[in-house]
Structures are given as C-alpha cells and as structure tokens.
C-alpha cells in the first residue's frame, strides 16, 4: 500500500533527485509486498497468486495498518508517514529474519537490507523539514500531529500475532515498540519536532476496518485488472 502511495508521486516530486529516490523506495516496497503475497497465496493453497490477492480483494479483505493507506498530502506528510513506518519496518524485518519459517526469513532478510536505506532517507528528510524553515517546520509538525494517532496500531498484536510469535514464526510485535520509540524520539529531537500527547485513534485496518481512503485507492489500482477478468497482462 505504501509503495503504491509513493508511486503516486512519480513525476511530481519537489526535485528530480527525489522523484528517483521515491521511485526506488516504491519499487522496494512493492517488491517486498509481491514476495509476501506470493508466499501467502502458496501457504493458503487455494491457487491465489500475488496478483489475485492484490487486485481481486476488496478493501474489507485487506489487512494493512491504516497509516500506510493515508493519502500523500504534502511532502512533509509523505515523509513523516514514511519515517514512522520505516522505523517499524526496520525492527520488524530485523526480527523476522530469525523466523523459523525459512521463506519468511528470506524475504525479511532481503527487505531488511532495503529498509535500512529507507530509514536513512526518510529520517534525514524529517530532520531537514523540522529544522529547516519556519514553513517546513510547521508542515512537518502538522503531519506528525495528524499521523501520530495512527502509529499505535502497528504494535497491537492480535491472537494470530501472538500464536506466530509463540511458534517462532513471527516477531513479538509489541516488543518492537520501545525500540521504535527510541529511534523516533531521537530523530524528532534532532528535527525539533514535538511528539503529540494524543491518544491512539480507533483503528481497525488489520481487521479489515479501514479508513475511507483505501477503497478509493484500490478502485483505481484494480480498475484495469478487474475490467478484463481472466486476461493476462
């Protein structure tokens, strides 16, 4: 989802170098998603390919956290969103590399290498915007204020997460939060941004109860694939 969102920037970035960087990150993320979806389809064993899972599921059947489906907004919004997720992804994939499932561990190892660069890119931009001009600071603070309430969802483990962690397949998601928070605190301090005290928003993305944005995003993404059922591309 996040990779798809980033791809919306293609050709509209603030500077040509950022068009290139965002396209790179989008490619990494969609590449990771493709591998995870392929593995999910194989594990399910009903013959659903990665494309079937991406293009022929409705929003209600998607299981992503809400943070990553939020619209791009301005560049501060995009970068703050990216940073909050990148740091989570970094720690999640770092743990997932140790999964007892070798296929998952393999995808995580590949993704982890990529995400290290993503964190560097987004954190440097958050710092530059926060500690740049008055305008960039105001925009970055506004983005953080809006998005912060959606971050708690990343660390809310459900029964499946707990079962996976117990079997050594997935990481202990809740345990990632303090590590994530330490990095976020550090970067926000450098960026002279203030973490808001707002309580977490009522989120339900991982149960299929998404924001209204997801349906619109998917309707665009799925239009061609769904308009020609059975077609090969």
């Amino acid at each position, binding site marked *: 989802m996040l990779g*798809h969102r980033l*791809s*919306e920037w*293609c*050709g*509209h*970035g*603030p*500077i*040509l*170098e*950022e*068009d*290139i960087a965002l*396209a*790179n990150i*989008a*490619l990494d993320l*969609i*590449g990771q*998603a*493709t591998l995870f*979806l392929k593995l999910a389809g194989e594990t399910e064993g009903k013959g659903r390919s*990665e*494309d079937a899972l*991406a*293009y022929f599921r409705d929003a209600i059947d998607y299981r992503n956290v809400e943070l990553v489906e939020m619209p791009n907004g*301005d*560049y501060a919004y995009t970068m703050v969103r990216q940073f909050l997720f990148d740091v989570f992804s970094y720690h999640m994939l770092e743990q997932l590399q140790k999964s007892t499932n070798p296929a998952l561990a393999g995808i995580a190892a590949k993704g982890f290498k990529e995400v290290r660069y993503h964190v560097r890119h987004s954190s440097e931009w958050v*710092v*530059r*915007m926060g*500690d*740049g*001009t008055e*305008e*960039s600071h105001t*925009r970055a603070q506004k983005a953080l204020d809006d998005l912060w309430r959606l971050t708690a969802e990343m660390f809310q483990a459900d029964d499946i997460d707990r079962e996976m962690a117990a079997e050594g397949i997935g990481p202990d998601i809740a345990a990632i939060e303090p590590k994530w928070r330490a990095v976020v605190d550090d970067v926000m301090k450098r960026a002279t941004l203030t973490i808001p005290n707002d309580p977490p928003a009522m989120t339900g993305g991982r149960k299929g109860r998404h924001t209204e944005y997801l349906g619109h995003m998917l309707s*665009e*993404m799925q*239009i*061609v*694939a769904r308009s*020609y059922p*059975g*077609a*090969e*591309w």
Partner: protein
Amino acid sequence: MDQQPQNTTEEALNAKFEARIAAGETIEPKDWMPERYRTQLIRMMSQHAHSEVVGMLPEGNWITRAPSLKREMVLISKVQDEAGHGLYIYCGTETLGVDRAELVDQLLSGRAKYSSIFNYPTLTWADMGVIGWFVDGAAIVNQTVLAKASYGPYARAMIRICKEENFHKKQGYEIIATLAKGTPEQKAMAQGAVNRWWWPSLMMLGPSDTNSPNTAELMRWRVKRKTNDELRQRFIDLTVPQADAVGLTLPDPDLKFNPETQHYDFGAINWDEFWQVVKGNGPCNRERLQARRDAHENGRWVREAAEAYAAKHSSPAQSAA
C-alpha cells in the same frame, strides 16, 4: 583597428575548431568552441532533458492503474529511468556553462521546448506498450546517432541512455505482444493505441528536412549525424516488420515496401498537426506544463528547507560568523 587582433584570434580559433570537427575529434567542455555551437548544444541538450522530465507524466498517469504487480514495478522503473536521464542530461548541459535552475525556468516559463509527443494523452493501458515501442523506439533511432555527436559529454550520455532505452522499447513491445495475443478486447486496445500513436511518433523525429532550419549547420558540426527524414525512414523500416509480427496494422494505407529503394514508402504526414502541437495547442500542452509548474511550486518549500538546514549545519566557523 583595435578590434583586429581579437578578430584574428577568433578567426584562428574558429578555423582550428572547424578543423578538429572535420577531423572527427571530440569537443570537450574546456575546449574553445564558437558561441553558436555552444548555444545550439544547450538548446538541443536542454530540450532533450526537458523531454525526459515531461515524458514522465504520460506514463506516470498509468502507474497506479497498472494491471499487475510486475507491470506496476516495470513502469515505475521506466519512469524512474526517465528522471535519471533528465538529471544526467541536465548535468551534461551544465558543462556548457548554464545551470539547471535556469534551464528549468526556461521550461516552466514556456520558452524552452520539449518533444511534441508528450502532449498527447495516454488513454488506455495499451498506451504504455505503444509508448515504449514507438516513442522509445524512435528515440533510440535518434539517440544512437547522437551517441556519435561531436560534443563529448552529450555523446557519452547518449551511449548510456540508449542502453536503457533499448530495455524500455523491449518492455513496451512485450506489453503490446501480450495484448495482441490476449482477449479480443485486449487486442482492440492494442490496435487502438497503435492507431493513435503512430503518426505523432513519426512527427516526433522532427520537421521534414525541407523545413528544418537548423539541420545543415548541426550536421556540419556533427551535432546531428542524420537528417530528420533519414531517421524517420529508419524508424519506419524497423517498425513495420515488428507490427506484422504481432498482427497489428499501422494506420497508413500507403505504407508498403519499395523494392527499388529497399525502404518502406509511407503516406503524407499532417504537418499542420505537428506545428499546432509545437505551438502549444496540442491535447495536453497546458496540462503537462501545469503539472511541472505545480511540482516545482509545491516543492519550493522543500528545497528551501534543505538549503536552510544545510546553512545552519555547515562548518562551525561559518555558523559562528
């Protein structure tokens, strides 16, 4: 009389330059060159860079609707390559003593041109295939020749860019080949895109030689190596068999192989349409330029933030002062 020594020097330099060109030597940024050579190169190279950047828009239009994860990734990579080409050629142009900000300003103010082809809309997924096949195909025909241009930085940029363009063309043709052997709707989609893009792609190679004021001089300086009409013929000769191979028809009833010339004859190009698009009246001229202006304006505060941060965190001595 005071002028004479300077003129003599200028004449001597000029003669030496023309001799180097005639001998097939490569001109490098620090070499002396006539002002007109410099300005012509800046014009051509910056138009090329602008075309790469504006060219991101028609394809970017379909990234979020690509029909599979693989196609989406390939399309993002392609548009990303175009951004890279733009950047690379802007840098090459800077070796001629003009900076990128100035070139971008020329584009946004409408003073600089970019390839007319990007003022046409992308209406179906098949357009992503045809752009790769035709537009990148025509670009390769042009750029393969430019790779032997007399100005070193431009020639070297073209060599590198051509490699990627070849890949773009292949992926475009592969999209079309897949559609052509797909469902009847897919094949119709491919044929429709071929019909819409064929003539603009021929026009993309530039006005006919009889109406191309810069050609003679640019050929003499080896900035150009083939005329627009020669390039166009080469593109047509390459493309017709490719269309046959996937069972699609090029929309020109006069297109047929001429055994005498060993080339394909083709019908009359509607140059009125070409000049209309060049003058700004094409289907998407306003939208393309507006999209670039918006990106530039909306990105201003981001660039300023990066500059302000860099200034604050430069060397301590500077900050203290």
